[in-house]
Structure formats: C-alpha cells, structure tokens
C-alpha cells in the first residue's frame, strides 16, 4: 500500500476518533474535551499538509494518481454475472490532495474558532464531536474512489449537517431547518442514487475507474438518453448538496446552526462537495447534460444574487451569496471550465469561510444580533474583523488582486467561450447572467460592508419587541449572557477567534495561487487540475477515429488501470512547453491542443480554446461589472444619492419578490409539502376505512357477534360492509329460522326435501 494511502487513511480516521472520544467522554474530560478535537484536527491537518506538499509541490505532475481498494462485500459467483465483489477504496490525485488540505485546514480553523464562539454552551462537548463526524464524512467523500462509498459519505455529511443545523434543537426554527435540510438533500440523493443504479446495472461495479473504462470502451448497452439521464441524475445529488435551484431552499434556513458550522459546512466544504462530485463524474457527462448543468448554475447564481440584495440578516446575505457562488462553480463545470470551477471552489471556500467567521465574530460581539439594520459603525470597535472581512469581501466581489477575481474570471471566460462554441444565441444567456450576478454580488457585498461597519451604530433603533425576539433567540442557547447590551459594549473578539480570520483572509490573496494576478491559468492550481478527457465522446457522433482513439486509450491504460492517465503521456509536450520560456499562454494553448490531439475530442478542445480566447474580454467585462456594482452600492448607501427605501417603494413588487426569496418556500409548501401531507391523510383514511372494510371481511362477523355479545360494538360502525362476511352472516340468520322448534314443521321439511329430490330426478329422468 502506498505510503500516501496509509497517511490518508490516518487522516480519514482521526476525526472519527475525535468523534468517538468526545461523544462518549465529553462529560468526563476537562473543558468538555475541546482540546481533543482541536488537537486531532491539528494532527490531521499536519498530515494532509504533508500529503499536499508531496503531491503538489514535490511531484509536480497533473496526472499524479495513486489508488488502493479492498473487497468490502463478496457476493460469490452470481448467476449470469460471475464472481461479483463490491470494493471500497481510496484514490489520491492532485484534486484530492488539495481538497484534503483545504478541508482539514478550514475544519481546524473552525475548531479553533469554536472554542471561543461556543464557549459556555451546555452541549459544548457534543458540538465538537459533531464537527468530528462531519470532518470524517467530508474527507470520506474527498477520498472515495467509487460511487457507492461516495454515496455513503454523502449521506453521512447530510447526517452531520442535520445534527449541527439542529444543534440548538430547542428552537423550533432550528428543528424545522434541520429536517428541511435533510429532506431536501434526500430528494437530491435519490436522483444521485438512481444515477448510480443506472451505471451499476450496466457494469456491475461502482468504481469510477472501471465505469469510465467500460464507458470509454463503448460497453454502455442502454440508449444515450439513459447516459445523459445518468449524468443528470448524478448531478441531482449536487443540486441537493450544493443548494442549486430548485433545491436551494434549505441552505439559507441552515443558518439556524451555529455560525462556525455555517462557515465550515454551509459555505466552505459540504456544499462544495456537490461541485467536487460533479467534477469527479465530469468525464461521463454528455454535452446535453452539461448544457442543463450550465443553465442551472447560471440561473442559480443569478437568482441567489437577486435575493441576497434585500436580505437583512447578515448570515442570510452570506448564505445566498454562497448559493450564488456555487451556481458559478456549477456553471463553470457546465461550460467545461473544469479547472476554473474547482479553482473557484477552493478560493471561495477560503474567503467565504472567512466571511462567515467574521460575521460570527460580529454576531458574537453584538450578542447574537444578526439583523444588519441594527448594526453599523463596528469598524472602530472591531478593526481585525473589519480588515479581514473587507478583504474577503473584495475577493468575493471579484476585484483584481484577489483570488476570487482569478477564479471567477476564469469561469466567465469559459462561459463566453462556451457560448461562442455553442454558436451563440440563447447560450449567451449564461455569460450574461454570470456577469450580471457578478455586479449584483459586488453590490450586495458593498451594502453589507456599509451597513455593518460604517456609519453610526443603530442598535438603539431596534424595536423593543424585535429586541425581545432576539433576546429569546439567543437566550435559548446561552443563558449566561447579559442582555442589556448596546453598541459601545462591542469589542474585538479574542485571539482564538481572530487567528482563523487572519489566516483565511491571507488565503484570499492572489499570490497564493498564481504569480500573475490577472491570470489564474499560470498558477499552480490550474496547472495541476487539468480538464480530464471525456469518456462519452464516442457516444455522441460515433465516428471511427474517436472509437479507435478511445480504444487505443483504453489499451494504453490497462497497465496503470486508469482511464485518465493517458493524459500523462499526452501532456508531456505541455510540460516541456511550460518549462521552455515561451509565453505561458501559448504553452497552455499548445498543451491543450496536444492533449486533445491525443484524445481527439474536438469539443473539449474548442471549449478550452474558446475560454482561452475569451480570457481578456472576460477580465475587462467582469472588472467593469464589479466596479459598477460597488459604485452603485456606494451611490446608494454611502452618498445616499439614491434612497434605498424610496427605490424599494418604487419597485415594490420586485423588492418583495426578492425579499421573499422568489416565494420558493411558499410554492413548495403549497405544492409538495401540503400535497404529500394531504395524500398521506387520504391514504390513511383509505386504509382504515376502505381496505380494512373490504379486505378484513371476517371482521364484520366479529363485529356483529361482538355486537351480539354486546361488547366493543363501536366496531360495528367503522369499516365498509364486507360482502362475504355479510352474506355468511345473513345466511346464518335466515337458515337458523328454519329451526322453528315445532317438530311437525321439521317433518314437513323432511318430506318436502325428499319430495323435492324426487321431483328433481324424476324430471331429469323424463327429459
């Protein structure tokens, strides 16, 4: 077993260990054992940092990959299939290494931060335990090499998110939110599960590598529509986890959880898992599927941005911006800007975590006041928070020199290229929406910064009852805080909450990722994460060269048992190109070409080319948009040239539409929730009355005799009359009347019967 594998297993199991320790012993340990969590996560991060170092820095190889698996379930010699095993395994490539480092780092920071934020909560220990199980499941997703285990950990992160959202379960809102989150995810998951089933039913394996091998070899027996369906169904999982439209509704409610949790799960890692998963299955997505994905992403990005404009809860704004940014990533994948999307995933993880932790600091300082309308002027009170928050905001808004700028720009470039390749028309909608929401992002982030940090404190403006409500809201989870607070009691948070902010903010600056602030493509990230060659190309227009190429590719791969590692050989020229002092652009360009000449997939080639060509236009447009957005925010909030309230009045319908989140909750509640509840009521009634009445025939005898024995006659009422029972009953009632008790009638009947028989046979005799 490769040493990295062993290390990764250790990394995987460490958080589980922390969970086990804390769940059982948190009451016995000092400080409820938070140091256990922090310590273990620290170790985990150290190891994954080492893995990151070895993989990314030392072996600087885009096609790096080590895999290991073991037989989990052995079904023996199955008739019609032969020996059938279900394997579990671990794969480590560049993406995995990066994700490992990122997840453990953010998790570590959040652990550290929580020691301050959650201090004094009565379930303090359990909280860290839950963080542990979450980190474990998240790492599981990152490391899995097959669909089945990904699905398992997928559900497990769902569970831990459920537990953490509902951490303050006394609050009904929290309990509702956690249920909502789990169910919404479940809806996504059944789609994902069906997708997995489609692939399994074809290849009788869950392993990525084998599935891709078989696909590439053209072994997919069902129609291509099924393949597209498989891709989209798998994508449904991402829709659920990454809160894409139409399943985005759970994420904002998930803010009921503790803020560090929101930072870790609902901003940085778990929600990104959806994008990560789509990246894993990227190669089997057919172009049709990709189109759908692109549109969903674009629409989500836009919709969430519009909603974020009008939200007043500081965390909800961030939540919707998260949805919006996830939309960007999905969009990126949809348009084929694979590495850009993943790049954005990472950058976004850091600056969004920073933002959430910052907001947490603010909320903490404001004694659990979350409404931005009653904040303001915090700049002087909380300089550190202000600085980090602003930096992260700039990154999110996508201003140059930030990481967000590079990644978002790369995505938008890809979008433009995509629209070009697809021949324009409606496909231009995607970049347009992208740019527009970029502007909106800048706007609402500007608004937030202003409302929170600038101006004067507006705490006193808060209506009493509202204050009251807030008091309740937070009294629910820590009763020790005094409630008579006001702005000038606000002070900077302690070091263990400040340090994470600083680190994360530092990670939102461009040079972490790329020497060139304008072009992420020159950074190590986008070099290490290359668009993998699709394996479904041959399913579109099955032309001969592709077939043969795919075939050759497969034959070439059998040695390393990896469909994708052909890139390695294919990319040799690229590396040389990079190392030789040509302009990086050309290098990139030629590299992509070589790659595609090896894979003969024109489409990917065109997309890459297009995105590259669209690189600079994208930069200009997006920068303009961002400037626009920020200046608009300034115009509205800083210089008060436009009064926000008046405008809101002016466009009231739109305002309400945005404020009420496009009424999605109401719509779902009216249709799905109400519908299924009604249906269930109906079915239950049907069950007790109709089915029971019809099927449970004998029951009526029971009832009638029960009635005769005058007990539990209430059962006589319910239930439909059952006919067999009824007939049995009545015949009994009628027949017994024959028994008159008069002996002579008996004789009469006897003779009647004899005579009857006689006549019967007599007639039969005559005729």
């Amino acid at each position, binding site marked *: 077993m490769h040493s990295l594998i062993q290390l990764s297993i250790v990394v995987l199991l460490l958080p589980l260990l922390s969970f086990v320790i804390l769940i059982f012993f948190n009451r016995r340990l000092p400080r409820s054992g938070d140091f256990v969590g922090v310590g273990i996560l620290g170790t985990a991060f150290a190891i994954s940092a080492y893995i990151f170092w070895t993989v990314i820095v030392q072996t600087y190889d885009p096609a790096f990959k080590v895999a290991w698996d073991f037989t989990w379930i052995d079904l023996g010699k199955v008739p019609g299939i032969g020996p059938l095993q279900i394997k579990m395994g671990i794969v480590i490539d560049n993406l995995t290494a990066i994700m490992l480092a990122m997840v453990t780092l953010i998790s570590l920071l959040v652990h550290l931060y929580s020691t301050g934020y959650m201090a004094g909560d009565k379930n303090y220990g359990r909280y860290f335990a839950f963080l542990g199980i979450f980190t474990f499941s998240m790492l599981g997703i990152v490391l899995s090499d097959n669909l089945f285990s990904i699905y398992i950990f997928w559900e497990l992160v769902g569970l831990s998110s459920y537990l953490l959202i509902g951490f303050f379960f006394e609050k009904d809102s929290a309990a509702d939110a956690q249920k909502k989150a789990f169910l919404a995810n479940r809806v996504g998951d059944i789609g994902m599960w069906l997708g997995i089933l489609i692939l399994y039913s074809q290849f009788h394996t869950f392993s990525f590598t084998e599935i891709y091998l078989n696909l590439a070899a053209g072994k997919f027996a069902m129609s291509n529509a099924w393949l597209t369906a498989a891709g989209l169904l798998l994508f449904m999982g991402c829709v659920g986890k990454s809160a894409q439209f139409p399943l985005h509704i759970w994420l904002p409610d998930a803010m009921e959880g503790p803020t560090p949790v929101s930072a870790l799960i609902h901003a940085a890692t778990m929600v990104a898992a959806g994008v990560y998963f789509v990246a894993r299955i990227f190669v089997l997505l057919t172009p049709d599927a990709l189109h759908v994905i692109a549109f969903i992403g674009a629409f989500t990005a836009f919709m969430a941005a519009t909603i974020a404009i009008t939200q007043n809860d500081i965390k909800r704004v961030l939540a919707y911006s998260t949805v919006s940014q996830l939309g960007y990533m999905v969009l990126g994948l949809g348009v084929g800007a694979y590495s850009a999307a993943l790049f954005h995933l990472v950058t976004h993880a850091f600056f969004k975590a920073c933002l959430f932790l910052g907001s947490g600091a603010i909320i903490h300082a404001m004694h659990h006041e979350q409404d931005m309308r009653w904040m303001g002027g915090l700049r002087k009170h909380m300089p550190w928070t202000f600085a980090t928050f602003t930096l992260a905001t700039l990154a999110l808004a996508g201003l140059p020199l930030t990481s967000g700028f590079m990644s978002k720009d790369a995505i938008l470039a890809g979008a433009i290229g995509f629209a070009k390749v697809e021949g324009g028309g409606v496909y231009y909608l995607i970049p347009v929406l992208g740019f527009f929401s970029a502007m909106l992002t800048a706007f609402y982030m500007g608004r937030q910064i202003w409302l929170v940090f600038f101006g004067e404190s507006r705490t006193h403006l808060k209506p009493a009852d509202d204050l009251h409500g807030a008091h309740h809201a937070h009294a629910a989870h820590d009763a020790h805080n005094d409630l008579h607070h006001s702005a000038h009691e606000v002070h900077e948070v302690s070091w263990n909450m400040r340090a994470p902010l600083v680190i994360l903010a530092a990670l939102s600056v461009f040079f972490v990722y790329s020497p060139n602030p304008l072009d992420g493509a020159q950074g190590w990230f986008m070099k290490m994460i290359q668009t993998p060659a699709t394996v479904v190309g041959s399913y579109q227009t099955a032309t001969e060269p592709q077939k043969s190429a795919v075939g050759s590719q497969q034959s070439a791969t059998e040695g390393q048992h990896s469909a994708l590692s052909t890139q390695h050989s294919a990319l040799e020229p690229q590396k040389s190109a990079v190392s030789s002092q040509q302009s990086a652009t050309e290098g990139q360009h030629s590299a992509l070409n070589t790659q595609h000449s090896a894979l003969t997939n024109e489409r990917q080639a065109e997309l890459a080319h297009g995105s590259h060509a669209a690189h600079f236009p994208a930069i200009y447009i997006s920068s303009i948009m961002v400037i626009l957005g920020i200046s608009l925010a300034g115009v509205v909030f800083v210089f008060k040239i436009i009064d926000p309230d008046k405008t809101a009045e002016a466009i009231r319908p739109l305002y309400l539409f945005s404020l009420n989140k496009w009424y999605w909750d109401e719509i779902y509640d009216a249709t799905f929730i109400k519908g299924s509840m009604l249906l269930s009521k109906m079915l239950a009634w049907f069950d007790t009355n109709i089915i029971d009445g019809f099927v449970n025939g004998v029951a009526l005898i029971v009832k009638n005799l029960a009635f005769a024995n005058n007990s539990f006659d209430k059962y006589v009422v319910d239930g439909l009359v059952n006919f067999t029972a009824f007939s049995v009953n009545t015949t009994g009632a009628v027949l017994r*009347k024959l*028994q*008159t*008790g*008069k*002996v*002579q009638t008996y*004789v009469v009947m006897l*003779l009647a019967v004899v005579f009857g028989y006689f006549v019967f046979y007599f007639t039969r005799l005559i005729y």
Partner: protein
Amino acid sequence: MEHLIPIGLNHYLTISVFLLGFGLFAVMTRKNAIVVLMGVELILNAANINFLAFSKYNGGMGGVMFSLFVIVIAAAEAAIALAIVINIFKIFKSVDVSSIDTMKE
C-alpha cells in the same frame, strides 16, 4: 264370482300408498301427540302391506318376516311413545305437539 275383478298387486300397493299418505297427513297436521303417533303407525303399516303383497307375488318369506318384525317394533314404539307423551302431559299439561317449542333456532 268370476265377474269380479281379481285383486292384484296394484290394489295392495294403492292401499299402502293411501295409508302412507294418511299417516304423513296425520303426522304433519294433527295437534294431538297421540294422533301423530297413530300417523306413524299408519306409515309402518303401509310398509307392512307392501311387504306382504310383494312377498305374496314374488314368493319368498322375507317380506312376511319383515312385516312381523315391523309389527313388533311398532308395538314397542307405541309403548315408548305413550310413556313419553304421558310425561309430556305431566309437564306441559297438554299434548299439543305444535305448542311444545321452547327450544328453537
């Protein structure tokens, strides 16, 4: 005398059928237990006539024997029946068969 019709098997059978009918009629319609029992006797005697007639015309003593036994049985039956009827009269103060129906259904 020869102008008289010779009595044949059918005459006997006719009589027995009539007896049977009377017997059944009595059993079914009469209220008085005694009369009912007389009806039963009639039935048995109808059978007797059959036996005798058949045995006369088929030869063989079986029928005669049978009728003898039937007569004996009828006597025994009468005895038992009367005993029971008397007992009934003691209890119900009547021998109306149709009125004795405490047990039914």
